[in-house]
């Protein structure tokens, strides 16, 4: 069974067609990278899948459930979560609070006001574990505003996977990072997504080839190719679209 299936997904905003019919399958347990030029609609596709935007037409299936028009929080509860291209964190909360918040839905109740968060043992225990996993233990009580950019991206990924979703969408997790930070994050992503299905947008080809089982190329709102890294590397159409007309002399 596919972890995620997109059928003819279209998104129209006013006059402009942003997604022009996307078909894509994410196999269970696979790591699929989505590449394409700026403005191709990659992030928009993520928005549509995760319920941030509602698609104009088409169908989105998570395993065998239709999640096409569900609100975002319900999609998350169905087991699909995403990170954001630009960090989407809670400016005034600490790292630990972030992890707790991400775990409340899973191990406690969001509307609980009669107990202290501290007493929600499962939330706390899991948050501590994540802290170690993300190697953010030292930063436990730091307000995210004061984190370095790489740490913020790390946390972004951390709260994305904390909810226990088994289908993860990451939007440019390494963008804006130094090479060493990027390598570390890639390693982490690899660890965190064992046994999970991963769809990742990435511009950094090194990362892409490092991580991906398959690569999908998106241009102007359409997936023009979806294949193994080797095949994509050889694909002429992709080359034209992605890197321009490069004629080897």
């Amino acid at each position, binding site marked *: 069974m596919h972890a995620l299936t997109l059928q003819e997904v279209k998104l129209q905003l006013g006059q402009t067609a942003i997604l022009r019919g996307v078909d894509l399958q994410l196999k269970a347990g696979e790591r699929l990278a989505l590449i394409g030029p700026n*403005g191709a609609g990659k992030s928009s596709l993520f928005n549509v899948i995760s319920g941030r935007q509602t698609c104009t037409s088409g169908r989105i299936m998570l395993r065998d459930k239709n999640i096409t028009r569900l609100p975002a929080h319900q999609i998350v509860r169905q087991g699909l979560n995403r990170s954001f291209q630009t960090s989407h964190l809670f400016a005034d909360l600490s790292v630990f609070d972030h992890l707790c918040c991400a775990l409340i839905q899973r191990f406690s109740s969001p509307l609980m006001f009669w107990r202290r968060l501290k007493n929600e043992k499962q939330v706390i225990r899991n948050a501590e574990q994540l802290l170690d996993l993300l190697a953010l233990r030292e930063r436990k009580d730091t307000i995210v505003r004061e984190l370095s950019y790489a740490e913020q991206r790390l946390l972004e990924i951390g709260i994305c996977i904390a909810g226990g979703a088994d289908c993860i969408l990451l939007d440019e997790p390494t963008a804006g990072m130094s090479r060493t930070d990027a390598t570390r994050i890639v390693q982490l992503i690899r660890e965190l997504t064992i046994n999970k299905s991963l769809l990742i947008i990435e511009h950094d080809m090194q990362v892409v080839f490092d991580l991906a089982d398959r690569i999908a190329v998106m241009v102007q709102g359409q997936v023009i190719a979806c294949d193994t890294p080797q095949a994509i590397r050889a694909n002429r159409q992709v080359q034209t679209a992605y890197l321009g007309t490069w004629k080897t002399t």
Partner: protein
Amino acid sequence: MKNLLTIQNLSAYYAQSQVLHGLNLDIKSSEVVALLGRNGAGRSTCLKAIMGMVRTEGQIQYRDQSLIGLPSFKIAQSGIAYVPEDRAIFAGLTVEQNLMLGIKPPARAESTWLWRLDDAYALFPILFERRAVAAEVLSGGEQQMLTLARSLLGNPDLLLVDEPTEGLAPQVISQLLDFFVSVKQRGVAILLVEQKLELAKQIADRFLILGNGSIVFDGDWDEFIENQSLRQEWLEI
């Protein structure tokens, strides 16, 4: 010859993410420089940094003026024009209104008006035909021409162009090529971000490759062709 634009140790940030790491670059008068690099390498950011549209650190010297920290309209008024990759046409306005917003005298009193509305129309007759049409209904190529013409009407000495051929038909691209040649002939320096090497090859005097936020190659076409490994590392998939 004295540099028109000198950039030293430039860093640029989106919020906290650093995109450019200590970039050095210079452009001489009437020179056409092509800036190459992979998607997301930071080429667009480099142009935005020059225009003062992102947070920057380092030095940007234009003629004898420092541009760091100036608001973008001041930078534009000092003689730099910018053509963004998303074109940023003013959707509600007509073609002619779009062009009128670009009109601006040359930055220095001694220079002459190189571009007037008629020149722009002469260069792109199609724009003249469609001058009363709302800009949003133009085709992508026409929009690109509009943006280019709009920028030139400000009589700049330096033109920053971001991926002008993105999504254009080959025929339009060759038209653009002629355009760049004629701009170059009138003595306007150009910093061109372009993916299509064919095009770049025909107009650029110098080639730069941007990788990981700084310039990793600087040389002319021949040097560029020779340097196979560099190309492989920084340009190919």
